[in-house]
């Protein structure tokens, strides 16, 4: 508001030929601008989000190998969904793995990230160095991380087995490879959460801590009763990030073994069926729709929280 006031004053003072600008009602140009600002993003969202989403839902009721026109789609009703739930072995493991991913990411790396942030927030020696070291993995792509960890985990030539003289098949044994991958993910995710909380902690008003100290609160009480609740916006953001990260978990397992053999996750199954040479568009779309449905639940919860926040 403060910035617009002077410009309105000057335009009123300098020109009598443009009375429209002074009025409260919008001028033609402004109206066009406003309309464009609403219509263009709306059209983009419609075109890039809703259209493909509904296209995907439609495709999920047919089989099509991508050759020839859309008229060659055979409509099969709920067959794809039925097949996914009954005769497609990777599906249920994938659902379970996504859930494990979510819980793990929430419990370990997030807590560790908060812990590291709190420690680094105390002006200690070399804290810049530690910050950089913990944050560095975040800069790397997950694909690259998969590659780096391959050097640790390789059964015959990997660092871990070499140092400990073990013969654990970290990436190949379906009982442990999910956990091996989660450790690699956590390595990255921790730094991310740490940075967010570090920023949050820096923004907490120092007088709050002083007040708590004056009231006789110890370190624990100060953090959990005063600082943590104040960081509510950060908490919501981190929560959302964890959910998003675990739903879109993909790159790492794709680099490791294309999401097979113990590393099945929904996003990888979608890709297996529709990306590259494989052309089960109907089947893959059905998987994508299932993924979309799950995401929608979380999105709905998130939006509810945000709207409730705004109403306050």
């Amino acid at each position, binding site marked *: 508001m403060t910035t617009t006031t002077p410009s309105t004053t000057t335009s009123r003072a300098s020109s009598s030929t443009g009375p429209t600008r002074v009025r409260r009602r919008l001028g033609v140009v402004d109206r066009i601008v406003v309309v464009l600002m609403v219509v263009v993003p709306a059209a983009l969202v419609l075109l*890039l*989000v809703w259209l*493909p*989403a509904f*296209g*995907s839902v439609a495709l999920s009721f047919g089989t099509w*190998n*991508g*050759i*020839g026109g859309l008229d060659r789609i055979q409509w099969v009703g709920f*067959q794809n969904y039925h*097949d996914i739930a009954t*005769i*497609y*072995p*990777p599906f249920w493991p994938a659902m379970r793995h996504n859930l494990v991913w979510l819980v793990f990411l929430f419990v370990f790396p997030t807590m560790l990230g908060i812990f590291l942030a709190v420690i680094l927030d105390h002006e200690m020696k070399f804290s810049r160095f530690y910050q950089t070291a913990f944050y560095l993995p975040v800069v790397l792509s997950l694909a690259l991380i998969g*590659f780096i960890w391959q050097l640790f*985990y*390789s*059964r*015959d*030539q990997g660092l871990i087995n070499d140092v400990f003289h073990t*013969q654990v*098949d*970290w*990436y*190949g*044994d*379906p009982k442990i*490879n999910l956990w091996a991958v989660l450790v690699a993910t956590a390595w990255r995710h921790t730094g991310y959460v740490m940075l967010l909380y570090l920023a949050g902690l820096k923004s907490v008003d120092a007088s709050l801590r002083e007040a708590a100290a004056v009231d006789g609160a110890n370190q624990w009480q100060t953090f959990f009763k005063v600082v943590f609740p104040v960081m509510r916006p950060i908490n919501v953001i981190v929560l959302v990030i964890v959910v998003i990260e675990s739903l*879109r978990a*993909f790159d790492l397992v*794709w*680099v490791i*073994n*294309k999401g*097979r*053999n113990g590393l099945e996750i929904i*996003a990888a199954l*979608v*890709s*297996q*069926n*529709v*990306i*590259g*040479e*494989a*052309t*089960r*568009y109907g089947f*893959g*779309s059905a998987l*994508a729709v299932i*993924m*979309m449905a799950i*995401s929608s639940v979380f999105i709905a919860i998130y939006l509810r929280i945000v709207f409730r926040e705004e109403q306050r």
Partner: protein
Amino acid sequence: MNRQQRPSLLVPPSALATAAASRRSFLRSAVLGGALLGSPALLAACGGDDSGGGGGGSTKTVKFGVNEAKDSGPAYQRMKGFADAYTKKSGVKVSANYVDHNTFQESINTYLQGSPDDVFAWFAGYRMQQFAEDGLLTDLSDLWPIDGMGDAFKEASTSSDGKQYLVPYDYYPWAVFYTKSLFDKNNWQPPTNYDDMVSLADEMKGKGIAPFAFGDKDGWPAMGTFDILNMRINGFDFHMSLLGGDEAWDSNEVKKVFETWRNLLPYHQEDPLGRTWQETATSLAKGEAGMMMFGTFIGDAIPDAIDDLDFFIYPQIDPSIPADSLDAPIDGFALASAGQNQDAGKEFLKFLGTAEAQDAANAAADAPMIAANENASQDSYSALQLKSAEVVGAAGHIAQFLDRDTDTDFASTVMIPSIQDFLKNPDDIDGLTKSIQEQKVSIFGS
């Protein structure tokens, strides 16, 4: 034989990493939330003409789609050799479009339905037949028979309608590799029948050597073992019709293949699912394992041991079935029916199949391919290549490898996980074959 493009460390051949941009994959990745795959548009149109010179319908230019990236090594050099030799010979300009191998393969559907080059590099087998049946390839039967190519090559270039759609240029057989040094040291001989092979394996095991180096992290290497066991136990014709979708996967024949494999598994390296094929090859080179069922491109992973390598053809199992069939994937050139310049394309293809053209390609490269034309010069071949040529020349039937001989969807989304399941749990063969059959019906429709 240089197949470095096929088995790159991260990208198995048939199941594919990157999302190539196409109208459909655009929709797909948008659904996935964009960020999920976040793939940049690769190869927006591989029909793009990179020389800029070719004037569409001119009879003096033929467009050539190559599945090798520019300057990507000997395979690229050979392709360029083909193009240059033709221009020199006929005066027709070849406008080549060089595209990375995996990218090319992943976008092939879009490519062939858009504005493809006239002549393009592809593979023999079911993957070619599917395109032929969909009318995406031009009938090349008037180019056959090709002087210097036998019936096995003609069979591999033929689609379900009995017509040919491919002109082969190279191949690389799958066989049992071993290191001569290890065999000499222990005074072992390559086995000539199945029982010999098993007793040799027992002896190796007694010495603490894993008889078969084995890794299937990439998903496709174990297919080679399935193929050869099926061909030896049930014969070539059954193998091809099984992969073609005409036989049941829960049949006794298929179960017998898995049972035989289960009995052989104790002779294979443990924990195959965490081992890449490069690591597997390394353990063979280091003498930790005695043998390895693999393609001749094994040398790419262990270049230092290449002179020490030798191979034998997988021995006979059922005495009533001759051991004369093997996997030897054939690469070839085809003519896209949507190509602008059909006549010029055919002329070019006629040249590409000749010994003269394949010699020119080899002469232009640092390392030769095994030319499909048996009249091609073998002067530059390595010892392994000479033996490969001999073995394939003597073969009665050539299969193309599981992922090229069957529906791609079936190979990558059903067979890879199923074989991996089998390796994890080899005892539930009934459950495994039942699951494969159910999924096969869902994909093939019968």
